[in-house]
């Protein structure tokens, strides 16, 4: 046996093994000491979301990118954690009698980080540049500046914006538009503005001129971006001095980072991560926001004319076990419903929340029996010669979170003789709409979610005829609805606007256009020693990128 250890090869291997073990042991102790040396004024956030890929507001594509400029640049107004409109750079605002001109009064004494004052000229310049270049370099960001003709600054603290038509949801629609420093961006925006693309916003390329509560200190487009507090910010100064947006591609990794103390907050993890977090004594876990999740079924489909019958759609709605989905797929971190009009919009925009369909398989079967749709030998009903078999397209990267919900839908619908199949593809939108965006495809349904905005205008817009082939996900067209949409979108009177919205959503209910599932919450887990974490919540979950001051009171 001892002959064995004379072999040099084996000796080498044993040495290597010992060395590795030693290294492991050393590392084990080292990592513990490291975490306690991080100061409590740095908030380490772990997101299961995309990394911040660009710091240039014009190139922002993902929510991380929008978050990055949201916390760095001034916004005129913001929507807080209760979805209430709050002042931002603009401390007050008013509209002209004809509704086409908005006037904003800016905060006095606000400064950029290079000491220059923030004036209405900066805001006017930004708006005008975006409008001017909306077919070019500002294509992405121009969705936050719809219907604007021009902007100007009669004096340094007053901004006027002229619209094509009155826009009741103007402040909600423009929430993603920052105010950029003119003295930095004007040279880039000259001519066709292509020089704008060269702006990196990377502090490594030189100090970036901003004026939000935070500025980017260190940027890694594949990993973590660190923000540091801006002392010259005109709004409430955050208590923390730094925070980091660290990206995790996998929820296990994110949860382990939280439980081992490498991060302070984890957000966006699936509901299955809740139990491991809950079982840890010093961690809190809560759900925030209303992420809409539903099945968008074509209203007019040449292969399935039965889908245009509200009774059929009602039957489908009755055969979805929403509360079952809430408990099994989302572990309770969701609310049954899932339409594009969440209960948060009552009573401000809608008189009362839209009713959530019951789970009543018997009644659904009754309806379909009443229509004469008999079941075939395979149990699938036949509607006027067509089998009630439907294909739904869902986003493949969401399969882990939505898959369970899809399974439930499939199962309960089979009980009423409807066969639902789910395909998880990389581009469900094009798969569903067809490559010519004319609704001619193999799919009758699109399974997914739409980001809700603070104002129902954007939701209602999706059902209009104008949006066919773009964001009308149902191939639905109703002239009365179109009329109501235009009316409410130009109506500044909240009471009468509410009546119009009630009537519009009433039409959608009668026609049973929507098959909503749930409003899912963003699951957030954090070290309980951090306070006021819920301040950063918003209608879309956590963190709220519709407001800038969510960080203000978060502290250790």
């Amino acid at each position: 046996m001892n002959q064995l250890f004379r072999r040099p090869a084996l000796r080498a291997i044993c040495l290597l093994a010992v060395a590795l073990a030693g290294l492991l042991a050393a590392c084990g102790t080292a990592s513990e000491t490291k975490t306690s040396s991080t100061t409590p004024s740095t908030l380490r956030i772990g997101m299961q979301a995309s990394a911040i890929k660009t710091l240039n507001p014009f190139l922002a594509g993902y929510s991380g990118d929008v978050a990055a400029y949201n916390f760095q640049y001034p916004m005129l107004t913001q929507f807080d954690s209760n979805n209430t409109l709050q002042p931002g750079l603009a401390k007050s605002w008013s509209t002209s009698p004809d509704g086409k001109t908005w006037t904003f009064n800016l905060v006095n004494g606000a400064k950029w980080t290079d000491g220059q004052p923030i004036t209405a000229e900066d805001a006017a310049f930004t708006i005008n540049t975006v409008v001017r270049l909306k077919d070019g370099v500002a294509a992405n960001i121009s969705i936050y500046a719809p219907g604007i003709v021009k902007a100007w600054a009669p004096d340094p603290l007053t901004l006027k914006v002229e619209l094509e038509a009155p826009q009741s949801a103007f402040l909600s629609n423009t929430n993603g538009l920052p105010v950029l420093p003119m003295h930095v961006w004007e040279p880039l925006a000259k001519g066709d503005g292509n020089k704008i693309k060269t702006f990196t916003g990377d502090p490594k390329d030189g100090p970036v001129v901003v004026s939000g509560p935070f500025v980017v200190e260190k940027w890694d487009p594949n990993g973590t971006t660190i923000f540091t507090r801006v002392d010259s910010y005109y709004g409430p100064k955050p208590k923390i001095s730094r925070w980091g947006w660290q990206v995790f591609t996998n929820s296990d990794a994110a949860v382990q980072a939280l439980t081992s103390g490498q991060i302070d907050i984890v957000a966006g993890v699936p509901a299955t991560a809740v139990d491991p977090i809950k079982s840890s004594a010093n961690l809190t876990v809560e759900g925030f926001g209303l992420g809409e999740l539903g099945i968008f079924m074509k209203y007019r489909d040449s292969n399935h004319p039965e889908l245009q019958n509200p009774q059929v759609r009602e039957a489908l709605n009755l055969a979805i076990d929403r509360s079952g989905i809430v408990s099994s797929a989302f572990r309770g971190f969701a609310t049954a419903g899932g339409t594009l009009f969440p209960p948060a919009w009552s009573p401000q925009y809608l008189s009362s929340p839209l009713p959530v369909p019951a789970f009543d398989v018997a009644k659904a079967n009754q309806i379909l029996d009443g229509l004469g749709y008999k079941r075939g030998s395979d149990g699938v009903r036949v509607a006027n010669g067509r089998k009630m078999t439907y294909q739904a397209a869902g986003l493949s990267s969401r399969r882990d979170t939505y898959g369970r919900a899809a399974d439930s839908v499939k199962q309960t619908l089979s009980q009423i003789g409807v066969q639902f199949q789910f395909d998880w593809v990389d581009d469900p939108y094009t798969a569903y709409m067809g490559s010519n965006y004319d609704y001619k495809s193999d799919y009758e349904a699109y399974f997914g979610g739409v980001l809700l905005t603070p104002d129902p205008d954007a939701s209602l817009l999706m059902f209009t005829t104008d949006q066919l082939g773009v964001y009308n996900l149902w191939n639905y067209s109703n002239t009365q609805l179109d009329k109501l949409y235009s009316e409410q979108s130009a109506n500044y009177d909240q009471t009468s606007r509410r009546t119009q919205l009630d009537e519009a959503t009433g039409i959608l209910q009668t026609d049973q256009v929507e098959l909503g599932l749930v409003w899912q919450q963003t699951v957030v887990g954090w070290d309980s020693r951090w306070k006021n974490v819920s301040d950063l919540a918003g209608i879309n979950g956590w963190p709220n990128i519709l407001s800038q001051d969510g960080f203000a009171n978060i502290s250790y």
Partner: protein
Amino acid sequence: MSKRQRYVLRRAGAAAVIAFVAITFSFVLFRALPGDAVSNIAQSPRMTLEIKEVLRRNFGLDQPLTTQYVLYLGQLAHGNMGRSFQDSRPVTEVVLRAAANTIPMAALGTLIGMVVGTLIGVTAAYRQGSSLDRAITGTSMVLYALPVQWLGLLMIALFAGVLPTSGMSDPYLIDPSFMATFQDRLEHMLLPSTCMALLLFGSFALVVRSSQLEALADDHVLTARAKGYRNRRVVWREAFRSAMLPLVSLSTLTLGFLIAGGILTETVFGWPGVGRLTVQAVSARDYPLLQGIFLVITLSVVFFNFLGDILHAVLDPRVTQ
């Protein structure tokens, strides 16, 4: 020109041809993907058809294929691989940065796996038939049979509190010293590199063992023993030298694929390298980025293969005949 020089030139020519075909192949492949990047980017309720058309034009997706191909070749000649759809950053920069992340981790794992695997393989061949040999062969086969991602998951489960299980470094270190950075990086690298090493170890051990066995059966080894040389010299100097030849091809091939980074390993451990970038690029339909990754990996393999051919020629003069 000597026979050897001619051989080198021939192999260089073959490599160049393969590289060109690969370049064209990747262009054709990626332009055929259905759907496009535009519909993926931040689905916002207010995006109109016009905006989508503008975006499509900005990224050059509306021009005929032949024009796109010519542009593509010209840009490549300048080392420009276009701009990523996701964030408009130059693809060359994105891929090179990812490669810079992949290489240390993959190199560490690959080299350890290769070296340890080779040592073990030689040992097993030398002790053919013994219980040690059986143990080694058995372990190697088991390791060879384990799915990478599963092995990675088990390692995460085992080392969750002890070592960082994701990412490349701790981003919150404030002004770290060189030692602190080194330690931090090494801690993060340990698990994924070990995962790769374990993978390779199995296959290398088996390959080395079998080619060593063949070499040991050769005549010149018999001669060396008859001459009375010590076992160790016979094993390493005589047998291993000829066993090394196929090992060289395998090694260079392995090194060539090093940049591919181990898609599975990087996904499991959240390592921000080329492997993980590939998966992200596919789900974002980021053509230019995918093309760039493909090209870099393919060209790296072609290059290392070429190196392997040269090494082979150097080590085994019979090849050039």
